[in-house]
């Protein structure tokens, strides 16, 4: 039996703001096996980064994990001490932050930063660590001649790639990559995604890839987790999802993707506004914007249903 690398159950992460409680992650379940890649997608503000940060217990205040379990390789992360958690971060679970400067130090040279990260966790000499750092940077397309530069001397995409190099530096079991390619041209993007695939095949690295760019998902992810308003509304293998999304939000989302091969199509978007996570819509959170919504949808919250093999959807239609 293959046990899960990560099992999230009933996770709630709320931000306690002046205006009320933002229910950014609201009762989310998620499972992943070793070496699996999950594409985590959803509307801007739907809670993707919050979920990613919660796994590493890095939710900034006034945010808090309210309830739920995050079991990683048999360890319940929500119960570990801060000390124990620190040993896991970077080494076993690493994160590529949406803001690349989160993981960079403006006063430290790029090369030194990577070298020190490596040396803090592995017993290598300075020379060995430097060699490894140079190789890592080259793998993400940054030449060794830039080793001595500071972050402000790098372009947006170059900083992003350093963030990726840092996250991969210690061969973690799980990488949470939050919009890692949002400012990379398609060629460099492919190079990075290929590198991640290679690490997955070589070391069985698992990945949660948070991205707004759904068109890259079929090429890299095994599964798709779709979030809407703090909840997971569909969880399916990537192929089935792209062939036929079940949740009405997923359907609408796929219809909005522009296809560069079609000439002059009009842009489509989902009518209505992103929901307010302090006062989320009653019943199904997508009901104000859903073309299939019924009276029941507006009153009751739909349960999460298993459809076919291991496919989950949160909608009354199933």
């Amino acid at each position: 039996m293959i046990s899960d690398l990560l099992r999230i159950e009933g996770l709630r992460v709320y931000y306690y703001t002046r205006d009320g409680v933002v229910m950014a992650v609201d009762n989310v379940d998620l499972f992943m096996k070793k070496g699996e890649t999950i594409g985590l997608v959803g509307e801007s503000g739907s809670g993707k980064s919050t979920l990613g940060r919660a796994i590493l217990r890095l939710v900034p205040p006034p945010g808090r994990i309210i309830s739920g379990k995050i079991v990683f390789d048999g360890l319940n992360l929500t119960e570990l001490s801060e000390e124990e958690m620190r040993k896991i971060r970077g080494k076993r679970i690493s994160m590529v932050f949406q803001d690349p400067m989160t993981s960079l130090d403006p006063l430290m040279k790029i090369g030194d930063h990577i070298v020190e990260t490596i040396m803090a966790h592995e017993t290598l000499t300075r020379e060995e660590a430097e060699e490894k750092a140079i190789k890592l940077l080259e793998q993400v397309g940054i030449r060794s001649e830039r080793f001595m530069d500071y972050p402000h001397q790098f372009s947006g995409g170059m900083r992003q790639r350093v963030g990726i190099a840092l996250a991969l530096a210690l061969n973690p079991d799980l990488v949470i990559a939050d919009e890692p390619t949002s400012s990379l041209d398609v060629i460099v993007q492919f190079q990075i995604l290929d590198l991640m695939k290679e690490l997955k095949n070589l070391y069985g690295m698992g990945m949660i890839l948070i991205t707004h760019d759904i068109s890259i998902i079929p090429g890299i992810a095994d599964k798709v987790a779709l979030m809407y308003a703090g909840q997971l509304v569909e969880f399916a293998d990537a192929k089935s999802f792209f062939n036929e999304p079940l949740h009405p939000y997923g359907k609408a989302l796929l219809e909005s993707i522009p296809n560069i091969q079609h000439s002059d199509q009009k842009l489509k978007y989902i009518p209505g506004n992103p929901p307010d996570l302090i006062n989320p819509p009653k019943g199904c959170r997508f009901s104000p914007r859903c073309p299939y919504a019924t009276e029941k949808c507006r009153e009751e919250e739909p349960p999460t249903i298993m459809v076919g093999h291991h496919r989950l959807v949160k909608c009354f239609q199933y």
Partner: protein
Amino acid sequence: MPLLKVVDLKKYFPVQRSFLERLLSRKIDYVKAVDGVSFEAEKGEVFSIAGESGCGKTTTGRLIVRLIDPTGGKIFFNGIDITSLSGEELRKLRKRMQIIFQNPYASLNPRMKIGENVGHPLEIHGIAYGREKEKLVMEMLEKVGLQPASKFYNAYPHELSGGQRQRVAVARAMILKPDFIVADEPISMIDVSLRARILELMIQLKEELDLTYLFITHDLAVAKYISDKIAIMYLGKIVEMGEKEVIFSDPKHPYTNALLSAVPVPDPNVKRKRIMLKGEVPSPINPPSGCRFHTRCPLATDICRREEPKLVKIDDNHFVACHMVK
């Protein structure tokens, strides 16, 4: 007369090498971030720049709005040479030119509420204050999908998600109703649906206000939708430029072709051939001789290594820099 005209624009940044290397070579090295870029954008036009990460797009945008000084070249805005404006004149220009920065985490004032971040430019330029300002800001927040606007008005930047911050940055640039906006990857963290809505808003405002955009994007599907003209950059230079239709239907430069072939198609059943580029990304400190793309170009020949191809007009509104394209 074009609204914006850029002539042979250059920006070289000095970079440090290790102490030993400096001792050995005794010269300062420069990153040739922008190395002789020329183009024009007409009033009311969307001029897009796409190209490899690190090829000089942001630097070009920052030079044009005069946040940094060029190493060489000239910038004309509305026929006036703005390359070395300063003081009061530069301040006046700023009201007409706005920039949406690439990183929405660094570009908002963390101590100001969102409402103040967006409304501040209105006050600085003496356009609106108090209630009036508040009303304009609320309207703009709603337009970019930050609803309920009153909640977002009172929130601080750190309380917002990546895509929410990007929308604040868009709102802040738009609120002054400028003539010209440099938009540097303005929607790179926004899901496809909301993105379509923001793009439509940008176009709608362009039409209302006769706005001109310099639109920097790595996303060619977005470029295809929004642009009138597109320039493809590689290592500090424009390698191909022209009307959108031409660039997408009849790309000539081998780099443009490689770029277009790599655009993912959102369908797992479609397998496409992407043109693989060999070799590593060359150095902007010591760029390759001749054509800068020759180290990775599938069509490179001897002349490519020796002579630099000029950006030449091959058709009305289509310019290419390649020895193999006549």
